[in-house]
């Protein structure tokens, strides 16, 4: 069991890196607290596998340190770090029984057979593998095999963390949620740091209490699923989380707020003050399709928009609107009337975000 700390960590696969483009991981500081359930989420090529390999010890970082409970482990192998890993494809000893598979790490440590037996029985029960203990591992289904891989990490008392690398890839869709539930239960039962790597927002948000979203070699936000949805701190998080993602519109600073085309959006004074002094070259506003207010008739200071497209998804619809030539998506519930031709929309201040060079401008102090 361990806290994992990344200090001034960066990695380049080239020998003499020059520009930031040479780095698969750009310099980052990060702490995975002991006992947390975490996810590392990002598209392919974002650097998440590089980071995972550095934590596990398969790769030594070119810059900075990895610390387990305050001790630098840069040069230690995965075994020496006591890291357990669960990969995309289950790793089991095919010819051994499930019992022997689970007992393997314990017997390696020289535990006496009575302890081995009680430990294996305990883990088999947690994982619902009790009925399969005498079966050969090769006769198991993919989800059972994956549970055996997990079980081998869980039986050891000295494991410092379990790392999952897209562990549900080969599991049948209708069994996936059961395994997700099992993973969550296990985390709540055992006080072990777990890090789950995936490109899938559902896997990440279901498993983790906190998610690190990676983009272009950086962690652009570390937050709860709710924070990623409600307050994306980077435009990439707004785009990547949610289907469809956040509406992002380029704007210019204007007296009292920002604007685009013929639309003016007022902003709080603190943000105005920030705008007056920022060196940022690109300003965008962001609002999620779920949070745009829409009616069929004019209201308050609503903006008039043209209805371009309606995607009927059965129990809700995604409308595409044109607001002064700018495309915008709005989610509309099943019981709502679909406006014909024109609609009036407004952006509640609470849900309207401002981004300067892709980073959220915080309105608070």
């Amino acid at each position, binding site marked *: 069991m361990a806290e994992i700390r990344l200090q001034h960590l960066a990695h380049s696969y080239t020998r003499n890196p020059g520009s930031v483009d040479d780095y698969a991981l750009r310099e980052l500081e990060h702490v995975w607290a002991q006992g947390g359930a975490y996810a590392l989420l990002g598209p392919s090529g974002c650097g998440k596998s590089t980071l995972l390999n550095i934590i596990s010890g398969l790769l030594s970082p070119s810059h900075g340190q990895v610390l387990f409970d305050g001790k630098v482990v840069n040069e230690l192998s995965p075994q020496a770090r006591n890291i357990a890993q669960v990969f995309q494809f289950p790793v089991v000893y095919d010819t051994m029984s499930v019992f022997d598979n689970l007992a393997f790490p314990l017997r390696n440590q020289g535990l006496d057979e009575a302890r081995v037996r009680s430990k294996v029985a305990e883990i088999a029960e947690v994982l619902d593998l009790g009925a399969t203990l005498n079966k050969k591992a090769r006769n198991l289904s993919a989800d059972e095999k994956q549970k055996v891989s997990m079980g081998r990490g869980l039986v050891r008392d000295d494991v410092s963390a379990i790392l999952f690398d897209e562990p549900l890839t080969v599991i049948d869709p209708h069994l996936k949620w059961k395994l997700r539930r099992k993973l969550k239960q296990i985390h709540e039962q055992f006080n072990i740091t777990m890090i789950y790597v995936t490109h899938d927002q559902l896997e990440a948000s279901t498993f983790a209490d906190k998610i690190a979203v990676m983009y272009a070699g950086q962690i652009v936000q570390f937050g709860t699923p709710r924070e990623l949805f409600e307050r994306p701190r980077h435009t990439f998080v707004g785009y990547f989380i949610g289907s469809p*993602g956040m509406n992002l519109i380029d704007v210019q600073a204007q007296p009292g707020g920002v604007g685009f085309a013929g639309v003016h959006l007022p902003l709080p004074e603190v943000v105005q003050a920030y705008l007056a002094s920022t060196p940022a070259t690109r300003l965008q506003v962001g609002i999620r399709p779920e949070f745009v207010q829409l009616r069929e008739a004019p209201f308050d200071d609503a903006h008039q928009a043209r209805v371009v497209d309606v995607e009927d998804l059965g129990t809700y619809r995604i409308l595409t609107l044109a607001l002064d030539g700018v495309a915008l998506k709005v989610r509309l519930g099943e019981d*709502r009337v679909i406006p014909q031709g024109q609609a009036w929309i407004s952006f509640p201040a609470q849900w309207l975000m401002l981004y300067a060079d892709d980073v959220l401008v915080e309105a608070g102090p």
Partner: protein
Amino acid sequence: MSLTLEHVSRSVDNQRWIVDASLSFEPGSFNVLLGRTLSGKTSLMRLMAGLDRPDQGRVLMNGEDVTGRPVRQRNVSMVYQQFINYPTLSVFENIASPLRQARMNEQEIRQKVHQTAQMLRIEPFLQRLPLELSGGQQQRTAMARALVKDAELILFDEPLVNLDYKLREELRQEMRALFASRHCIAVYATTEPNEALALGGTTTILHEGCIVQSGATAQVYHQPRTVLAAELFSEPPINLIDGRISGNEVSFAGAVHFAMNADLRRIGDGEYRFGVRPSHISLVPSNDDDLELAVLVELAEISGSETFLHVRNEHFRIILHLPGVHEYHVDTPIRVFIPTHKLFVFDSAGQLVQAPGAREARIA
């Protein structure tokens, strides 16, 4: 051009791959084949294309019998799951290949390739080789090749399945725009109910080689004729609860009783299966006819902007589909509310007795 299948069947090694399928597609229509893996989607498309010959039945194009006519003599294009391109030819030549085969003149080829590439947003990559492109761009190249030659019938066999969900979102929407202005028949196979809904047009549900239901997508979704159709066209799966109607009362699993609303009163006494869509159940009461259930959270699956909540009690296992992010610990006790006017009712043979009538539209 129109396409008609008349009582088409095909067996391979005594296994029935397609059983007595009759379908008709209008010119300029977009048609989805929806079904699980091995339900017969690909087999049916191969029969439409002329890649396979049916054992029984006829295939008609524009009313003309083309049953025995091989694919080469039909004006058909196909796009597959795997990104299939000629690896040694440039993107330009990949897209141009059907036109070269048709011996079109060079100037016309140039014009058509550029026009199609522009539509699919791959014009900047025309001189590259397919393998130098991203997965999404490779699949756009394969699509451009299928679209460039003005085929009368274009078949898509799960074309987006190997792309990540952000790309899928984008391409799905482009497909709708692409086909809005064309006159060919598009047939699109998918395993995902939500993809069928997003694409619109018509939907044909397939199961074990048989057509379960076919019609306008929204109609098939809102009026499934059988339990099977409702189950196959629902993601997450529709909740099914066994119950009985007697007198003025409905009871679920002999344990939960509620008074009937006006819609249910028309149905006679007896045993029924009740269906309720995951998106219709809520965490707060919203109607006067809501049925309140005390349950435990099995798992909250969060998908960025929405939550699939698995709950259970001693009688039921239910899934809710909620907008927004709802975080719960496993085994948290909560209450859920089922609007009884949103219930589907099926008889013991699985036939639809009643679909929820759309109440007067309300503005929230």
